[in-house]
């Protein structure tokens, strides 16, 4: 049985833990709102670009002369898994869920005899993947220098990916991130980003007027493909940021509640042992008095 002093110490330590988790929860809630707003304001660009890509793609048939980013290398031997994680912890199973999805995909591809490479964004997923696939990590993109991953980071990632693709280092790239559904639900998602999946041809709008292109459709498409890739990665980073905060909020809410439960339990235990000590003392006094 722990002494009264020990119990008091534990109650205090749990209380200060609770303060930390509560603060982190509130910070996450505020950041979540910001991340959601950022995701919201990125939507018009992505939507417009997808629209343009759709209408361009509907006019062009994919052939051998199409840009490699669209048509592929003609092989599917080497797969690159781009895994986006967060830099900070305290967000529950957020990072491990993404890593698990990536690992499942890696296993599946390796079972088919494909080569799997990793490109990691963010700090948190590194250790796990490094342990299991130490030789297959191509690059670890560092986002610890910036407060929030923004379009500049997405641009750098996309440029590196395209450069590697042009050098023939991989044939197909998949992107892993967590899609934000709500503060409670974040879905680990995998998405093929290279070759760019042909966007669904949108309903042609603009009436009967024939759109003129300058330069030719194919050249515009070739210029837009890398941008489309950047937008996709940017979108994924934003979703990831929102998901991280959501997961963090939920995890910290749970932690705060658990700490509260623990404090209640410890307090009851503390009171019991205090009462027991008092009772023993009384019994001793009474027994002593009676003996006289």
């Amino acid at each position: 049985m722990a002494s009264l002093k020990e119990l008091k110490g534990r109650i205090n330590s749990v209380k200060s833990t609770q303060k930390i988790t509560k603060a982190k929860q509130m910070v996450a809630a505020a950041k979540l709102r910001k991340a959601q707003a950022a995701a919201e304001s990125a939507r018009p660009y992505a939507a417009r670009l997808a629209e343009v890509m759709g209408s361009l793609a509907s006019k062009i048939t994919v052939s051998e002369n199409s840009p490699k980013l669209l048509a592929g290398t003609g092989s599917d031997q080497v797969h690159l898994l781009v895994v986006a994680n967060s830099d900070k912890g305290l967000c529950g199973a957020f990072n491990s869920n993404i890593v698990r999805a990536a690992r499942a995909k890696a296993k599946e591809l390796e079972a088919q005899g494909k080569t799997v490479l990793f490109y990691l964004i963010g700090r948190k997923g590194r250790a796990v993947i490094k342990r299991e696939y130490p030789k297959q990590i191509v690059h670890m993109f560092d986002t610890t220098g910036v407060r929030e991953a923004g379009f500049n980071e997405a641009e750098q990632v996309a440029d590196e990916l395209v450069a590697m693709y042009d050098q023939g280092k991989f044939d197909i790239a998949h992107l892993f991130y967590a899609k934000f559904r709500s503060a409670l639900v974040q879905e680990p998602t995998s998405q093929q980003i290279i070759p760019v999946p042909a966007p669904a041809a949108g309903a042609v709008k603009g009436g009967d007027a024939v759109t003129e292109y300058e330069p030719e459709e194919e050249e515009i498409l070739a210029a837009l493909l890398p941008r489309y890739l950047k937008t996709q990665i940017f979108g994924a980073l934003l979703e990831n940021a929102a998901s991280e905060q959501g997961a963090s909020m939920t995890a910290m809410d749970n932690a705060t509640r658990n700490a509260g439960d623990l404090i209640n339990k410890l307090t009851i235990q503390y009171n019991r042992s205090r009462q027991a000590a008092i009772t023993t003392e009384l019994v001793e006094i009474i027994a002593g008095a009676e003996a006289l």
Partner: protein
Amino acid sequence: MALHFELVTPAKLVRSEDVHMVVVPGTEGEFGVLAGHAPFMSTIADGALKVYKTENGAPEEIRITGGFAEVGDAGLTVLAEHVEA
């Protein structure tokens, strides 16, 4: 008649307003867009957009990089990767 002009970057919608004319530095030459322009798509060289709020007013310049212009029934939409106000 006013031209509806939208300037969008990946981070946000920078402009959405009605203007008189916008001169765009297309990769194959500058072109001006007035209201009622025929549907048109072009990539944009890195440079300055000239926005004329009124017919005789002085143009406002917006420097953009990595741009793409689309003219449709809804007006002119410029997608740019980076914008310097």
